[in-house]
């Protein structure tokens, strides 16, 4: 005999599952195992993982490291914001603060960099436009992500963690150049 969820079941209710339920519970369980397996599988076979190198860092130390990095590889500036072109394979430092991303990065297509993210004040959100790559930027923590840009172009960094009233003004820039196309251009006399 059936009863509703408002009625107190009498006697033992630990009984074998309803036949209609058994099939669905089995299917749902199998799907849950697929969901679980996908994450380790992507760590082994996939190219996009949020693992990174992670450690604590003092805000002052991170700021000093960023300044040092900028001085080492600076190639110019845009309205006062330094443009920095680190060599392929190097460590790259991006510093978030209210309300700017420092510095502007110039990277090469197809090269690997370790992109360090940290904040010197509150939480910020790294969101690479228009690719939609997002990471949390937390003060006191250095997040070193190995990245390989796969296309040349100009990208903006939007802040997508609320960081105060100037939040919407916090836009940075990443420029990706294609070294193959540039050397091609140089051979043709550097004009276009």
């Amino acid at each position, binding site marked *: 005999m059936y009863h509703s969820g408002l009625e107190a*079941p009498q006697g033992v209710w630990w009984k074998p599952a309803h036949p209609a339920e058994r099939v669905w519970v089995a299917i*749902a369980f199998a799907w849950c195992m697929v969901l679980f397996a996908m994450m380790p599988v*992507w760590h082994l076979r996939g*190219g996009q993982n949020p693992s990174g190198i992670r450690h604590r860092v003092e805000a002052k130390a991170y700021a000093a490291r960023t300044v040092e990095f900028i001085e080492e590889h600076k190639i110019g500036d845009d309205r006062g914001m330094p443009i920095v072109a680190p060599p392929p394979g190097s460590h790259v430092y991006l510093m978030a603060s209210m309300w700017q991303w420092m510095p502007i990065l110039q990277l090469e297509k197809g090269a690997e960099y370790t992109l360090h993210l940290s904040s010197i004040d509150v939480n910020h959100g790294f969101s690479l436009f228009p690719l*939609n790559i997002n990471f949390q930027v937390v003060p006191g923590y250095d997040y070193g992500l190995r990245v390989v840009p796969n296309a040349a172009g100009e990208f903006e960094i939007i802040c997508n963690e*609320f960081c105060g009233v100037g939040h919407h*003004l916090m836009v940075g820039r990443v420029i990706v150049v294609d070294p193959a196309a540039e050397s091609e251009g140089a051979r043709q006399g550097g004009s276009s």
Partner: protein
Amino acid sequence: MSAVFRTCPSTGLRIDSQADSLIKAHAVVATVALLVGGVAALLVLLTRWQAVHLLDAVWFYRVLTVHGMNMLIFFILFFEMAVLYFASAILLNCRVPAPRVGWAAFGLMVVGTLMVEWMMFTGQADVLFTSYVPLRAEPPFYLGVILFAVGALVVVGHFFAILVVAKREQTYTGSVPLVTFGALTAAIIAVVTLLHGALVYIPTLLWSMGLMEIDPEFYRLIWWGLGHSSQQINVAAMVSIWYLLGAFTVGGVVLNEKISRSAFVLYILFISMASAHHLLVDPAFGPAWKVWNTSYFMYMAVLASMIHGFTVPAGLEIGQRLRGVTQGMFGWLRRAPWGDPGFSSLIFSLVVFGFVGGITGVTFGTEQINIIAHNTLRIPGHFHSTVVSGTAMAFMGVTYYLIPLIFRREVAFWPLARIQPWLFAGGMLVFSTMMTFAGTFGAPRRHWDITFSGAPFQVEFSPAVDLVMGVMAMGGLVAILGGAIYILVTVWSVFFGRRLDPEESGVGKQGLGLPQGLIAPPRPLGPEDNDDALESHVLGQAPGTMVLVGIFLVAFVVYYFVNWNLLSFLWKVG
């Protein structure tokens, strides 16, 4: 103090007048919070709708804070406290053992609420709902949250006491009903959640007074132990209400107590792991921790929801088939009382929660896929389809039964009440899917101006985003209209509605003002209503539900793998 009882004419239950009063008080304050949060919703919507862009930046974030706190804390929790009293004292036929404690707890929650509201409206807590340190609010904000949480914890303790008293005084025989069991699940999760709250808000209060340091990642970890785990209170309360509304409206049955109760227990077991969903692209945690926790112990909490998502509609289907609604695969849906706002709310809550909320939630909560979802509009798109279209919709649906059963009033403006769930759920469906879609392009959440005027570099989203967010605004406006009708109907009914006579059950009554489940209650089931009374079908005894969950699974698989595919085109990152 001896309890004063009345006898419910619809159910025959003995009801303590203190239970009545406590439920009324919590429900009324919940509705006031919904009103404040709803006005805030309108202002936020009209600002993010770039064509209107109503508020300035300062007030946008302030009002967004007000919206989050009122909806996700004050409305939801006051309503849940009412649900706890209902599922214990009312359903178990029991007295309220400590009414004075109940009222003191209620008072504490109200004082906490008022402190938080004051701090938000005076601009002393522009920190948004999450208040991530080191973004700082003035100390009374945190103190208000703590007082509110202590009050809620006392109500939960009172609920446990009612269960003990009911058992000792034998006000029922057998085991507690499934609905009460679900509420018990919600209460246990509430204790775990509120302890996380104490663990994070007390140090944060001291930090805001300059008395100690607090690590930003410690805050995020423990805060989300409150912030996400508390969503499991909402889920457990919502699922309980699904079973409750199913029983009230069409006589839905429980297929198997073991399966449904075990599914509730799964929610409790893995609850604290939910925090990880917000920390998947954070620098403080490693991949093994992220994978293990975000999956809730290999997706066992997801399994629980998939079980309820089957047993609730299957219970509706079998309940109706037993009562002679046997036509075809979906006769039980076609002939269902769609004009009963309790029934339509139940179905909309179930469908939107499952299809939109569930699928997006699991997908975005996948460690790597979170890279293309974190802090974009996909996230509020997800939780507006769970906690709003799911939980709030279910709470609204049950209100149409609470008004006659507890407040003893007729539901006012009945024609409006009938269409209210359609407007609210329809609007929220458009709103949340469009919001999710805009987030797919990377449009950020919690952002005053995505045209970035005044920023050093130009960022121009695809025109598709403008279009999608315009449609989102339309959906949002319809949903807000639905919410406004809910508030109008409930407030008017409770204060000015026609009083029901003490003996009046409404059975067989013609006319407007009472839901179908009270006018024409489902036929009580007897011993002859067993499996032999059901037709056997190649898809089992609930073939319609089997087809529906099949469609659900296909949608789930497709959305999940499309997202892996989108992810694979990005830069290599690791």
